[in-house]
């Protein structure tokens, strides 16, 4: 007889038994031994149609194909750039995927397009088994982001920051009058009035701390209202 031992959204530690019986299936963060399913990392349990999953509370960003990420140019190479996307490995952006015009590599100055410290929004084009990450910018929405600055949030908390169909980020935008661009990798690019930027950082820190609690939207709303009043 199959039985679930842990409720959804509960914290588990590695080796903790999540479910008994063959009706449940393991996925990321869980494994099967005998007839039971155990957690293999610290995090929150998620359930979807008998598939068990453990989402870590914190951690590095692991790139997946198709993710839209925000990155910072780390290195200028001969025919491309290395980009810091908050993953354990730098991603590479070849010149052909980034620039529409023809570039003469022998004479062209690569920093003309992207210089060190520039912020870009790009797509994860491919991730190989040996973790070579290739980025692509072949879309009208993928571009260099001028001005503003980048702040960070845990990648596992990005869904909470965006909210249901963008409700949370929409609310933050409304109160702070800032532009926000969120990458799947937990890098957030913000631009706008300085007071707004300051408020966003506070809101992001609040979400980071309280992401696992309910009534998060109300709490953030209250904080933003107070922040706007104090300005």
């Amino acid at each position, binding site marked *: 007889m199959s039985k679930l031992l842990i409720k959804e959204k509960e914290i588990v530690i590695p080796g903790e038994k999540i479910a008994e019986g063959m009706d449940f299936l393991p996925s990321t963060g869980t494994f099967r031994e005998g007839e039971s399913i155990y957690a293999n990392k610290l995090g929150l349990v998620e359930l979807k149609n008998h598939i068990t999953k453990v989402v870590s509370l914190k951690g590095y960003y692991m790139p997946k194909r198709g993710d839209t990420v925000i990155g910072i140019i780390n290195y200028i190479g001969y025919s491309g750039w290395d980009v810091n996307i908050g993953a354990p490995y730098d991603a590479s952006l070849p010149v052909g995927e980034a620039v529409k015009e023809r570039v003469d590599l022998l004479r062209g100055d690569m920093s003309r397009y992207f210089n060190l410290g520039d912020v870009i929004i790009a797509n994860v084009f491919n991730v190989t088994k040996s973790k070579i990450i290739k980025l692509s910018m072949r879309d009208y929405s993928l571009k260099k982001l001028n001005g503003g*600055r980048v*702040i960070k949030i845990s990648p596992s908390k990005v869904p909470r920051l965006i909210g249901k169909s963008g409700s949370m980020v929409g609310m933050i935008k409304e109160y702070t009058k800032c532009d926000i661009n969120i990458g799947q990798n937990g890098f957030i690019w913000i631009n706008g009035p*300085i007071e707004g930027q300051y408020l966003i950082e506070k809101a992001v820190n609040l979400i980071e701390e309280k992401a696992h609690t309910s009534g998060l939207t109300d709490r953030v709303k209250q904080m933003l209202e107070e922040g706007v009043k104090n300005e």
Partner: protein
Amino acid sequence: MTVDVKNFRRYVIELSKKNKRADGRALLDYRKPIKIEYGISKNAEGSASVTIGKTNVVCGVKMEIGTPYPDRPDEGTMIVSGEFAAIASPNFEPGAPKENAIELARIVDRGIRESGAIDVKKLCITEGEKAWIVFIDIYIQNHDGNLIDAAALAAIAALSNAKFPKINENGTVDYHEHTEPLPIVQKPIACTINKIDGKLFVDSTADEEQVFDGRLTVTSNEEGIINAMQKGGREGFTEEELNKSVEIALEKAKELRKYL
């Protein structure tokens, strides 16, 4: 640690025009509360842990009997060493102390030595033959900026917590029993002032330390006499800025002294 150093600097400068910081403090505010715990290590003769914001520094005092220097036969001596544990920050690596750790230890050392914090004459046991050597070891447990102030505070807290180990009749030292406290006559306090785009800050976070132009540490004693100074960073201080920095440092030292 901020990833976007270039734009963060611009943000800090913008905010500083409104007397504000990225974490909500005013320019001349220390993070609160500053916590000092005494006697955290039972094997050390004296120890203390200082927490300023997320920065945590532990200091231990160990004592040993050695021979005094020939030119100062009636004085004991002290040695300060600093270690940046790799767990404290992604930028620290294990291995022999690097330049930053050596600089930190020397600033703390100079403050204690030049203020005459320890009455070194009382560390002498037999003139010319035996004297106490005081080892002050500083360990950075977590790095969120302002390590110098925290380390100096931890060092003086640990020293005032320290007690002499007992000397047996046959001359050996019994580290399990302690007698009287160490002769601490002065309590020097270090205050570091950072400069970003002509604005002066105290108690910078690790993020702010990535973008500052210059840094000046002023160590002063209870009477407001300056014992030591250390300048770091790539940009200089003008005469006006220097005078202002000293003024701030003396003021802030009074505030920090209350926590001891």
